[in-house]
């Protein structure tokens, strides 16, 4: 089981992932519980999912998927996840910033897929606040990655003002 890290703490995961069956057919929707669905599934079954009586909804995006496609659905969602097929595929960093900075997503933004300790710092700067850490990694050790660096030059989700603007603000 992957370990969930949320807000820089180890957390328990209430979300169940739902995707098409291997034969391509749509899965049956659990009546309750938190479910995280792929974008194609969301596009196919949003009505049914929204019609449930209990449980929260989330959508995950692959690296190639444009966050604009869920911009109109964000109000109905409690979780957005971005899937990294490999940690070296950096598209999700841009996806995350677009969700936060352009589409105004304030809820949980989770990194899933190939997620390791040494990427946590940059991921969190791009707006992720939850991470499903790969199996076999030491979760406690991973937590220290959030403090790899104590400052950053650029603008980011976590520090919207770049260092040069914060310096001026502090000096005043």
């Amino acid at each position, binding site marked *: 089981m992957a370990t969930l890290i949320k807000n820089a703490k180890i957390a328990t995961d209430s979300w169940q992932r739902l995707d098409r069956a291997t034969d391509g057919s749509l899965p049956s929707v659990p009546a309750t519980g938190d479910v995280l669905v792929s974008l194609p599934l969301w596009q196919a079954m949003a009505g049914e999912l929204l019609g449930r009586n209990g449980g929260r909804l989330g959508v995950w995006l692959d690296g190639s998927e444009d966050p604009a496609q869920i911009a109109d659905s964000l109000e109905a969602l409690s979780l957005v996840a971005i899937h990294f097929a490999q*940690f*070296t*595929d*950096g*598209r999700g*960093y*841009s*996806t995350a*910033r677009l969700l936060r900075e*352009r589409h105004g997503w304030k809820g949980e933004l989770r990194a899933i897929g190939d997620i*390791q300790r*040494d*990427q946590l*710092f*940059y*991921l969190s*700067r*791009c707006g992720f606040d939850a991470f499903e850490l790969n199996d076999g990694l*030491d979760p406690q050790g991973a937590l220290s990655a959030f403090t*790899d*660096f*104590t*400052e*950053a*030059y*650029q*603008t*980011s989700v976590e520090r*919207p*003002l*770049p*260092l*040069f*603007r914060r*310096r*001026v603000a502090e000096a005043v």
Partner: protein
Amino acid sequence: MYLYDAVDQRLVDERVAQFRDQTRRFLAGELSEDNFRPLRLQNGLYIQRFAPMLRVAIPYGLLASRQLRALAHIARKWDRGYGHFSTRQNIQFNWVKLEDVPDILAHLASVQMHAIQTSGNCIRNTTTDHLAGVAPDEIVDPLVWCELIRQWSTFHPEFAYLPRKFKIAVSGAENDRAAIQVHDIGLQALRGANGETGFRVLVGGGLGRTPVIGTAIREFLPWPHLLSYLDAILRVYNRHGRRDNKYKARIKILVRELTPEVFRAQVDAEWAHLKDGPSTLTAAEVGRITQRFTRPQYQKLEALSVHYTQALARERGFANWAGRNVHPHKVPGYAAVTLSLKKTGVPPGDATADQMDAVADLADRYSFGELRVSHEQNLILSDVKQSDLHALWQEAKALGLATPNIGLITNIIACPGGDFCSLANAKSIPVAEAIQRRFDDLDYQHDIGELDLNISGCMNSCGHHHVGHIGILGVDKQGAEFYQISIGGAQGNAAALGKVIGPSFAQDEVPDVIEKLIQTYLARRDSEAERFIDVVRRIGIAPFKEHVYGNADQKRENRNGQLAAA
């Protein structure tokens, strides 16, 4: 020289600690080779043919004497007593041990240096004109802008895992000495109608296996928007650049596949959101960075030193050197000097630890304690008094650093090739040496005049062979090392890609072929003022080809004839 402030220093120190821990975990088996690779690459560490290679950044080529001494110390203590200055204003150590690298990085940090993002699929060391700030043809001093780009690109959280490496070069002069047309992004700093600074932005240039000259996507980007516009370009590339094939992953392929017009429209659409946002640069920040650069305190001198002109008239050797290796300076009475790392028999760009220490001393005594690394793999003392030139020349000569060959055929740019690089098809160092030996005669070299000769050991083109007036490329022919030769390439404002003259040659044939190219040139030039490249442009490659292959065929026939007779 840019001086770190407390934050700059802290970030570099934190990077050392981070990499120390990553190395520890790798050596303890907690981090797999695959997972460690991108991390070590972003700290400049390759695993090469014989040993790991460490590439250290010399941001925009500027180096203080104490930093050069630190490099000498590293070469001595952790390597085999020398280093290799590359075409990207970096230095490479070829024999370091992986477990020593954290200590080496800590030593670098103690002199405000690092190996951050010198490799890997991220934004690399930003390069510029080696005469930045001193060239008479300068329009805008690029150094401050380079440092702003260095800070913006260092640990940029969004762009650490790009489809491929990403290189930015900046030029602020009339003559481009930074090869901005063959970089992922090339920035030409210029002045607008009211004297304000801005940038002409080129994208999608590059060498490698698909050489491309960059396309301008913006003619004048006012300076406050520099970083937000770079963010927009990088974001479009990060999201849409190809990741399915590493040979098609550079931005040049994206620009070509989309067309420059569509690429520009996508950048503009992205930029519309970022423009005037928090990344917008302020005059205060530009001023702050400017203040952190130490600048030479020049004396008021005569435009032309009598001492200098007398020495020129007196000594031919000195005049030869001054003619090639001394460059005009925008401050009266000063000059910039190239210390040539292209002495025959020494691999191009290599310097020993002793030479580095000695050059640091020269920089202290003659050039305000600073120097530059040029993309032609030489060292530059940028602020020398004309009246000191003769004394400097004598000292440089004693150190083997006064070969008067800048701009000439023996100032060869070459990658490390098969002697060090595991990607090589062929060696480049022995070929460079054989050519240097063939043209060792100074009068002959001077008669041939300006000529750029570049050698790469494979199509990755680290030696920029595409933009050499003569380019030599190592190729593999059924397991044997062969060399393909092209002519007509050029760097600078009139950048052009060379054309291959025909089938490739064995190593020992190369000097003869070069000689034939030179003979053709000498026979066809209309005057001494017409350079090799000018003649190629005027008459095309056919006459060169004829001379080379006509005779080569004959030689083969002769050889076959001899074989038949034997």
